[in-house]
């Protein structure tokens, strides 16, 4: 399959805008589940407002949240795909800039030292573009996540040591959810990375936070940890927006990676209630949009 770079650019633009406006079905279902369970009156009111906002965004064709975030594009390339990797990244950068200027969107990205905003939603190394590969023939996937800053500021890494054990990992997650409180815009998806190197641990925590609700870690040990931590986090009573109740998190998602004999790293990356993402799948029959 030969990849049309113009179609990639167009998809990079479409995905950014689409992600900002339409919440994935699994997240909508997650809201419905919380609405049914929540007993706290303030929590009930807050969840009802969030559900109303999802409808208003769709009816008015507007953004769900004002935070256009830091644009992240995760590319997965299957077998037998003919594409110039450098040109692919350039096409995505162009699409991201066009979304910002043509919609228009607030560019939320600045130089880290000068704080100058280029008004393109881009800059050095941003949009964040990651490339991975899969076994499927003639397929290229772009997953787009506009990562909001309120929840991204709720990112934590601890290089626990083997003597801390899995209990050290669990305690770190609970303590960081406590520390984040209402600042990360709960209900959230709490992404947890366990193992790897420091950078891999952080990366898989974000992949965990970006996973669809209802999905389960494909490592049985990770899946067990997800269930235990989900129960524990929602027993804290932080609640929606940090104002009380049981709707602290839609779920805790865990991803794992092998690590060094002397290491036991844990990372937390949180996704806010506006858990936005969008996906484009390129196959020989064209491009298909989803989540």
């Amino acid at each position, binding site marked *: 399959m030969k990849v049309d770079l113009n179609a990639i650019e167009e998809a990079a633009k479409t995905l950014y805008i689409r992600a900002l406006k339409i919440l994935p079905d699994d997240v909508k279902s997650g809201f419905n589940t919380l609405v049914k369970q929540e007993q706290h009156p*303030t929590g009930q009111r807050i969840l009802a407002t969030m559900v109303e*906002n999802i409808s*208003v965004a769709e009816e008015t064709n507007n953004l769900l*949240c004002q935070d256009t975030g830091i644009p992240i594009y995760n590319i997965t390339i299957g077998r037998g795909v003919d594409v110039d990797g450098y040109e692919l990244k350039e096409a995505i950068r162009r699409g991201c800039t066009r979304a910002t200027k043509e919609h228009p969107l607030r560019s939320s990205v600045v130089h880290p030292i000068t704080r100058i905003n280029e008004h393109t939603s881009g800059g050095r190394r941003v949009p964040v573009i990651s490339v991975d590969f899969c076994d499927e023939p003639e397929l290229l996937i772009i997953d787009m996540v506009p990562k909001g*800053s309120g929840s991204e500021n709720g990112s934590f890494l601890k290089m626990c040591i083997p003597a801390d054990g899995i209990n050290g990992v669990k305690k770190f997650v609970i303590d960081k959810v406590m520390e984040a409180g209402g600042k990360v815009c709960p209900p959230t998806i709490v992404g947890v990375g366990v193992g790897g190197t420091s950078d891999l641990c952080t990366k898989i925590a974000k992949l965990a936070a970006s996973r669809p609700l209802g999905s389960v870690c494909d490592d049985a040990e990770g899946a067990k940890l997800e269930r235990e931590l989900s129960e524990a986090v929602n027993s804290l009573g932080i609640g929606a927006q940090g104002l009380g109740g049981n709707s602290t998190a839609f779920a805790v998602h865990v991803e794992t990676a092998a690590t060094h004999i002397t290491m036991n790293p844990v990372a937390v990356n949180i996704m806010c209630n506006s858990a936005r993402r969008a996906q484009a799948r390129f196959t020989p029959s064209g491009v298909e949009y989803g989540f």
Partner: protein
Amino acid sequence: MAHYTIEMPCSEASIRQLKIGDTVTLTGWLHGIRDATQIHMFDKGRQTKFDLNGHAVIHTAPNVRKVEPRDDCPAGYEIVCVGTTTSMRMERFTSPLMSREGVRIIIGKGGLGEESRNAFNCIGGVYLAIVGGTAALETTWIDQLTDVDMDDLNPESLWKFKLKEFGPLLVAMDSHCQSMYDEVQASAEQNRLKALERMGISV
């Protein structure tokens, strides 16, 4: 718990009557302010052309479309989407916002800390919680973007909005030293100990 409609600008007395758990709808005017705006105002000594005395500010940096100024877009910006950002990053600016500029109401999400709670008590102010992530809805509560200052900081300019009915908003911190966030955090701390114990983790 009562509901109030307050027109901006407002008096100290209208703020002092509010208690946590009450709800408020604002009418009149609202000013958008954010990290960079306040860093420039209070760390770099910049003055705004707006009179913020008795006014409300919202922690925001909106999505706007630049247009030729016209009757319904006098500032040359059309509103696309106005929402709210996490307040706690701006904790240290509450006190100067109130003492230097006369601000009475801060609207945001996630709450503010002890220094703000004390400023609300000493000077007379409140924190009104809006629901984070509900910008599409908030945008429908705003009539017009009427003016802008410090626009070199765009999108973190100081924005002036004319409101329809902005709310309901929740009084989450009042002028009587009460904070719903503190109450929740205190009970969450007890729950945290129980959760750790259930998982067999000693503290």
